[in-house]
């Protein structure tokens, strides 16, 4: 073994890590300042006899196909639920719901909420094609609790005019937070505006 071989080994590890970071597919999760702060809905969560209300901003649909190296593109079909930001601080609640399902993926430009109604949509621990995590911070907690699993069912979707105005949706949500060995189950109801 020459003196250069350990160096080459380290370089190989660095190359692998760097390549993994660079090659990660990224979907666009972006909201304007108005969209992040303007409240259009409400989410009520109940846990251990305690009910807490979160003011939600408009629910956005993130639907796109992100290309990958030597693989099929990453299909991102997500509902992005987010509480309103206050004073520039991070939102207290942020959930990512995947509606891809087992069936064929819904076309990104279909803009049909009827396909989501009545389905049990899985909550994602992390955003598909993004770094954000699903979390919730109750009032009085310093740190948010990470969502491990859960689902969302849209029970009602009322269009607000044309498709550009979005829908008024209602539904139920159930998810677990905390560590996996001692999860905390949360249930709640939502009434919010959805835009696709």
């Amino acid at each position: 073994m020459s003196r250069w071989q350990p160096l080459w080994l380290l370089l190989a590890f660095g190359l692998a890590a760097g390549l993994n970071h660079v090659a990660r597919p990224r979907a666009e999760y972006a909201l304007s300042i108005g969209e992040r702060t303007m409240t259009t809905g409400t989410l009520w969560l109940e846990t251990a006899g305690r009910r807490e209300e979160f003011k939600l901003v408009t629910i956005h649909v993130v639907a796109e196909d992100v290309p990958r190296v030597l693989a099929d593109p990453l299909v991102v079909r997500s509902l992005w639920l987010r509480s309103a930001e206050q004073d520039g601080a991070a939102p207290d609640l942020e959930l990512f719901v995947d509606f891809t399902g087992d069936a064929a993926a819904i076309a990104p430009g279909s803009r049909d909420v009827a396909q989501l109604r009545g389905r049990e949509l899985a909550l994602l621990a992390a955003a598909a094609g993004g770094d954000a995590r699903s979390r919730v911070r109750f009032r009085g907690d310093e740190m948010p609790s990470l969502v491990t699993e859960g689902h969302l069912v849209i029970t009602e979707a009322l269009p607000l005019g044309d498709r550009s105005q979005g829908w008024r949706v209602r539904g139920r949500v159930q998810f677990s937070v905390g560590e996996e060995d001692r999860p905390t189950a949360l249930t709640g109801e939502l009434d919010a505006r959805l835009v696709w």
Partner: protein
Amino acid sequence: MWGGPSTPHACVTIETPASTSRTGRRTVLDRDSHMSAEELAHQQERFDIHVMAFGDRSPAAAEALQRAFALDEHTATRLLSETPVVVKRAAPPDVANELLDVLIRLGAQVVLLPSAARAAEPARESPADAARPVTSNASAWGGLDLQLPPHARATVRPGVIGCDAEQSSPASLPPPSSVFDSELDSESERDGLEFDLGADDPQTEPPLPDLALGEVPPLPALQSLGAAPPLPPPPAMRASQRPVAPRSPLMQAAPPQPPAMRAVPALPPPPVRMSQAAPSLPRLSPPPVRSAAIARTALPSLAPPSSRSRAQPSAASVRAAAAAGKGQHGNSRGPRMLDPGSAMSLPKIDVAARERRGEHRDPRLEPPEMLAPPTARLSPPVPLTPAPELPPRKPVPAPRPPVSARSRAIAVLELGAALVVLYLGLRMDDSVLHGNASLLSVAVHGLAFYGLGAGLAGLRP
């Protein structure tokens, strides 16, 4: 020695400072009664200088010839191209030696033949010759008996050129320029430049075919050099002299000869020596009269050496220095006689003055490069430039030993493992290429990349 039959009437012309300073002309002294028999024999030895060929006919050689004999370019070029040719007639031994040296240095093959003219020289110089002004000899160049073409006559430099004035009798003077020019014009188209065989006494000059020259090749047309002013020849000589026309082929075929010359062919065949035999040429005993002062005082009108260009001195200065000071310097070639004729026919250089200034150099003491062929010696100096430093040579890497089979197998295994890892990562969608690899997968992929590099390096010879 090559001495021809002794002639009791041999005449030597000597210039003395006294006579020159008083009259400005040379004084002819009849030294017959004052000279010993040996001295007379030396005085009677005259040589014709034949240039058989020039080894170098390049422009540089022509330039060297120009410088050596103060020729114009046209004459020098034609002299180079029209060999064999006689460049000097009846030259005294020392003059012949000097000319031989110069010509050899110019790359010429020279043959010295004893001149039969001196043997047949019938009479001493006439008083008219003594009365001839020294500076009138303006048609010889650097001691060569060459005749300028008509267009070049006006370019003769009297200050540089001398001639054998003491040997030129009035009968040998050229005809009037009108006749001469017409002949030159008519013949210049045919044979161009002509060279004189009879610079001394054309009327007594036997034609070459009559001489038993043996191996000497046919010579070109020869003509008397008009070194002297155009004085009318004596009436008795006009019949034979007027056809100076020996330049004409017809006249050469049947040259008019005085009765005295008819007997010349009876002379024994003279030996012919090529230029390579120059060192064995006859070295004459010290002459009865030798002095550089003669050369200086005999031609007071000639330009002093200080006024001459230093660009042209090479051969002329060598000749003059040798002719004036050979005996005094006492070199290995033995003493040489300074003949007044040679002093007149060679470029005059104040050797004594140059010696005082330290400028005079013996040609035999010059460095070898000065004795190089004229082409090399007179070529423009090439500036010596330091050789550019070459960049240091790169050490040639030692050839790599061939790759052993074991190393090759290891390399192939490393490559294979790396490829397997990459394939599995992609297959399981846990690959760094997808950007979704776990930490373990990243480490494995790191090893795979290392294996790729090691395998490629191992397969490289």
